[in-house]
């Protein structure tokens, strides 16, 4: 059972969280100018890195989305921050 640090609630069991998306994705807009390839990449293609990664997670119990940096191999969590003002 991993412990994830919600920026609002502190460390909580992983079962309280949902993965949202990889960090750093910008929704391509306006729709009329977005190629199918770009839209596909945005919707379906994930980097899925081995090692350090930045992701957006949702703390379901408080409803806040936040950024988390963690390692997909060691499961070590480097830290988390609220979404507000982040460069995503």
């Amino acid at each position, binding site marked *: 059972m*991993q*412990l994830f640090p919600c920026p609002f609630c502190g460390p909580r069991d992983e079962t309280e969280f949902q993965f949202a998306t990889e960090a750093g994705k910008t929704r391509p807009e306006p*729709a009329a100018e977005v190629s*199918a390839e770009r839209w596909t990449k945005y*919707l379906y293609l994930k980097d899925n890195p081995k090692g350090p990664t930045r992701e*957006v997670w949702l703390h379901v119990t408080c*409803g806040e989305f936040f950024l988390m940096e963690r390692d997909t191999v060691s*499961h070590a969590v480097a830290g988390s921050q609220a*979404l507000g003002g982040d460069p995503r």
Partner: protein
Amino acid sequence: MTARRISAGGARPIPFTFDGKSFSGIQGDTIASALLANGVRVVGRSFKYHRPRGIVGSGAEEPNAVVDVTLAGKTTPNVRATTEPLADGMAVRSVNAAPTAEADRAGFLDRFAAFIPAGFYYKTFLWPDWHLFEPRIRAMAGLGRLDPAHQPPADSPSINLRCDVLVVGAGAAGLAAARSAARAGGRVMLVDDQDAPGGSLGHRPAVIDGMPGGVWAEAVVTELRAAGHTVLSRATAFGLYDHGLVAVWQRRTGLPDALWQVRAKRIVVAAGAIERPLVFPDNDRPGVMSAEAALVYLRRHGVLAGERIVVATNNDKAYAVAVALHEAGAQVTVADTRPRGTLALRDGVEVIHQATIDGVSGARGVSSVTVSGRPIEADCVLTSGGFTPTVHLFCQAKGRLRFDEAIAGFIPGDPVAGMAVAGAANGAFAVSQVLAQGHAAGGGAGEPPRATTPDDTCAVAAAWPAPRGKARQWIDFQNDVAVKDVALAARENFRSVEHLKRYTTLGMATDQGKTSNMNGLAAMAAITGRTIAETGTTTYRPPFVPVPFTVVAGRRRGEFFNPVKRLALENQHRADGAVFREYGGWLRPGWYGTGQPATEIAREARQARATVGILDGSPLGKIEVIGPQAGAVVDYNSYQTLSTLKPGRIRYGFMLTESGVIYDDGVVSKLSDDHYVVSCSSGHVGGVVLRLEEWRQDRFDRSQVFVHNSTPQWATLTATGPRSRDLVAMLGLGVDLSDDALPHMSFADGSFAGGPARVSRVSFTGDRSYEIAVPTGTAKALHLAMMEAGRTLDAVLLGSEALLLLRAEKGYIIAGKDTDGTTMPHDLGIAGPRDKRAGEFVGKRSLFTENALRDDRQQGVGLTVAEGEPPLPTGAHAVETRGGARRSIGFVTSSYQSPVLGRPVALALIERGLSRLGETLDFVHLGTTRRATIAPVCAFDPEGARING
């Protein structure tokens, strides 16, 4: 003679049965010690060859003594006799044996052992098909029997605990660690799997801080408990999981077992070590035991393992066992594999050096042993092949082991952050060293405990198993793996330990190879000419011992597995005769009355169309979106534009996923430019809240808009049907109900019973309808008032089933039932927003992909069948045959018998359905074919006159 009790110490006798025979043990016995005390030698049959087997160990490592236990009507299968306390009236049964362990019918199997080598099942039953053989083989396999009549209660609590230091193991090392950690001021948890703390201090005497070891152990525990620390006995730390979570299974007397989930800043592993057997021909005869276990039975239970005992050893530690047994009255011979022993033995104990154990005679129990060619009459053979440190938690924390020649075993290598390993688990066997390591591991605060007794020496000289002629030398007792099976695996190139394990099943039984893994990999090393370090170990996966599923599942079973949401008016509905069913996670009235469900549902539907139906619609979502950007948020999340509504008006629409697929449908009410209420379908409330939140937080100014789910705060009662306005008028809500003031798709705020009441004109039946939302506190009063008003109007209570029927007559969809993971709004003929709406909304781009624009998409349609035919089965596939090949072109999503129309109605998703109106297709379901004709979705009142009727 065999084992017997030599000292009961005045303990209370405890009657029990084993395989139907009555016996008596004493207070403090385990099942195993009681069986030994009664001279029971054969306690079970081996898994594969059904060889008679006796008790080998004294703890979690026991491979043979696995039993089913019935106590107070509850049967627990596959219990280790060595760890289960004996209780009054316990009925103990051997496993894998019929009728009894002593007289097992399948015992003949062993005579065919030569034909059932390792890998036999893999090779033999491949042709023609494993599944032909599987049922019979499965019936032969398996150990204990579950009692199908017994449903274990869901009463095991799960307890979370955080502490500074978790110490696993309450032997000398663990006690010293806990003591120093506590003195340093941290919060300490000490867990131990034995009945009482002390570990080997309970059977190997030592004097610590001037006290006998057992007394010192009690004193440390008393000190810890007095200072508020947590000390658990009969509690096994069975696994270390992500981020250092340690799971502990605690057996409790008179209470259900508990699961502790412990997070500690530091973990001290002081789990001790397990003696491994020496391996020699026929070393599985009942009466061949672990030397250390014999000492445990003698010192803790007053049970002497035999009258004439041969102690076979490759180390000094077994000498203390020999001395103790001799002093207890047994005739003892030591067979030492080493050229010379390092300890002097007293008179009367013969020591044979450079001994080889050539074999053991006695099918149902040892009768003699051949040592270096010389037969010795014996009823018991004790073996000690050295000690294997219990390093499971260290390895689960990603620690790496190193092979230590001095103890002939793997011990922890480089330390792991946040963890210390101390004592025998770390390869230390001298009590002074054990105490020092424990004290340091706990932080080193205060005076270290001091032992004034001389240190044991171990002085092990490795004596690993190796092939020897034709005799079977057993390594894994529980899974019947012998040295020759390891040799076979090596010949067939399964040389990696992980392959060895899976090919021979070595270490895969419920004892997880605690006594056999080390011997198995050493045998593989010897056979393949590699070192033990090169050969390596298999992965130490949790759980350390079998943990009952009831403990893991805890209370999350039955109604607590996935609890239903309940209506505020549940009791009223019950009083009104409701039959409850689950709909989208809510327990709702399916129908009312005691008649046939179909009859009651038809009655409700017909009556609601004729007069007025009263329905509890409370689960419908009421999600408030508030703030200057509220309109922007709801617009962005909807297919239809909503902010253009006038305040007081309501609009129907879809929410899409970013893939353009319909996620939910529902209505949105606009209260003002900065206040909307999203009324999504009842099963999607949580999901819609999260979608709104996600975009609110990620796209909009989160200080300018808020999302609040007020669904649970309101009860919604709906009146639907031609007389619904008359009914609502009688409630005195203070709302002008004229169609000019309150037209369809509008709402008005009134009051009821001194509180607010919102009246909304939306309809899921196609008839004039009023939804009245009141705070849940006044729901009962509103319900009673509506029932009272309905009395004069011939009103009917409407359950969910009738509502589902009425909406299907109108062709109103249920998102997720009449749509699937591909359905887009234009597949239902609603393409306006896609074609006309400017600006972004969720899912927009996906509505224009090549796939979204295909002309052969499945589209939502209605279906009719020929006069007099019954309804189509839901799920029936529409099929098309082209060039001899039949393929599905869609399926029935909803299907009902309409009581008002007197014929079936159905909805379906069909390829190009919207351009196939009037076409008749074949529908296939479970081997039968029906014909149905594609029709508009709306089968009832297509002009929509009744919405104001």
